[in-house]
């Protein structure tokens, strides 16, 4: 992503057609799925389970058409701003991908390793992805947070988060 300046470059214009395409595809999916619903035996009332999905799906398709028209005529979705957000630099996909990796790692590891470790990996990985290079300090904070939240849920809320390999230790 070399240039994704707020609300205006060619590139964003073209990629915004992708949003319209996504909406249209989703709308079609919803409509088709509704039409394929089998006849229900316990259905009550004159309106079946498919009616509302058909309306919602058609709304999506209709909106997709209008959105594409709007983009064609020069309308642009304005990216959300904020004090921590700098829109002039373009999207930093490297950070996003690393964050996604940390996130998925937690999802995959939470049951085998347990939350105290997988959560710490998530926090440490996210901090690393965002540019923190205090490896030891980050790890300490991560472990305090994940062990702390595990104990908070266990003693404070009576909920057992996964213990994984720490079984018998915690």
């Amino acid at each position: 992503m070399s240039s994704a300046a707020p609300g205006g470059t060619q590139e964003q214009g073209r990629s915004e057609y992708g949003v319209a395409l996504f909406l249209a595809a989703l709308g079609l999916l919803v409509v088709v799925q509704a039409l394929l619903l089998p006849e229900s035996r316990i259905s009550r009332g004159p309106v079946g389970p498919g009616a509302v999905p058909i309306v919602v799906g058609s709304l999506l398709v209709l909106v997709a058409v209008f959105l594409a028209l709007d983009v064609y005529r020069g309308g642009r979705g304005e990216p959300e701003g904020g004090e921590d957000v700098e829109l002039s630099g373009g999207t930093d996909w490297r950070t996003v991908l690393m964050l996604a990796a940390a996130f998925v790692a937690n999802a995959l590891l939470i049951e085998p390793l347990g939350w105290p470790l997988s959560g710490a990996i998530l926090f440490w990985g996210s901090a690393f992805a965002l540019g923190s290079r205090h490896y030891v300090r980050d790890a300490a904070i991560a472990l305090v947070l994940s062990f702390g939240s595990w104990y908070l849920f266990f003693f404070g809320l009576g909920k057992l988060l996964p213990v994984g390999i720490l079984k018998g230790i915690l």
Partner: protein
Amino acid sequence: MDALNQLVGGFATALTPENLLYAVVGVLLGTAIGVLPGIGPAMTIALLLPLTRSLDVTGALIMFAGIYYGGMYGGSTTSILLNTPGESASVVTAVEGNKMAKGGRAAQALATAAIGSFVAGTIATLLLAVLAPTVAEFAVEVSPADFFAIMLLAFIAVTSVLGSSRVRGLAALGLGLTIGLIGIDKTSGQQRLTFGIPEIADGIDVIVVAVGLFAVGEALWTAAHLRRKPIEVIPVGNPRMNREDWARSWKPWLRGTAIGFPFGAIPAGGAEIPTFLSYVTEKRLSKHPEEFGHGAIEGVAGPEATNNASAAGGLVPMLTLGIPTTATAAIMLAAIQSYGIEPGPQLFDKEPELVWGLIASLFIGNTVLLLLNLPLAPIWAKLLRIPRTYLYAGILFFSSLGAYAANANTFDLFLLAIIGALGFMMRRYGLPILPCIIGVILGPFAEQKLRQALQISNGHVSGLFEPVSVVVYCIVGLILLWPVVRRFLPRKAVPSVLEEATHEIEEAHHHHGLTSSVSVERHVGDEARRKPDPADPSGP
């Protein structure tokens, strides 16, 4: 007065030591999380939702009342000290309050915001206590057809927010409605859009949707554009006001309450328009109009009071009709529903202890907020210095924790990632989040009412048109066709205060880029200014 008796009963519920503790913890947590930059009240509630799940329903709601007010006050603190409005309703506070803080008057800005929120919150909660039972009594008579019409109005109103593109608002609504469709249809037992995946047969947990859209989406979006520069936080001492500040603040507080409550209470209100209206009103009535834009205390006092009053007003349709008009109210509604309680006209009859306990807790939360936050302000200000790397890593950490803890299911974490990606896309292309979350939460309810109405009329579409609903449909039509209707109106038909408020909103959107987007529908053949749609006083 019956309502007052009930309210006393509510205080009896809320003032037990245990429940009082929940209220205090709620305020503290709500403020602590809400004050973190980039975290608005809706995200605060979404992140804390899993914590309250293990409490009984009364305790949970009491804690919510604390979190609700705490989160909002935390948002104002951030706006004033850091110029980061967490939600559109505190954009004005950021405009004037941050200027005050930069001019060395941060303590006064925080004080007028805190005391103004307290005054407005107290008056508005009192109005809520008096009005809500009456509205509920009336709402019992409301037929499914009328309900459906009112919900349609709410949908259209949240998608037609001023200064933003309506096509994109509708797109966001459509996405939300689609997410709401997923799961087993209650009337027929058919699985819809589940594609045979057993984990989503009961629909997607609202916690996952809310945390994904608000927290994960926001964290990813900000991470992709993180501003890597030192954070400038304005140092602040204890909030205080001198005699002149009081003299200049109390009228805006009261006017703000008067503007905010009705806007919150109509099922199409929201908090953005009234805060801007309040700002413009104060600017006109002020003896120091030249200070506006450079840090006028009235410009903080009025909008902050308005914001709180409209939040309390928003609980009227939320509790009596089950219709939320802000993201925060929508998530609270979902929280109540997760206990198997359906907010609506019967709520006051069926669950009096719960409702009045909640209303009493709003008073308590409000008072606790004032007592705690005036002395604690310097500590909250320190939270603003948290390194951004830890802030966003922490958001992802607690999002995952909350989403997992809700159902103890790994599948939810992958869903959270998908919905987070959706939130990222929506932010990138200017699709507003509010219509989406309202669609998710209100969509299934609207479908149920629509089908009930058609069941009553035996499938005749005419059953949808009853006196009340016809009026509501007319309002919906008017909002939808506003750009066309406007041309046939004489130029002076729109009161100039509204006109000015509209202008201010568009300016602010321009500066902050909050969920706004440009669309050609505004440029083609019509002036850019439109009247705030839900300002139509003809509510049902």
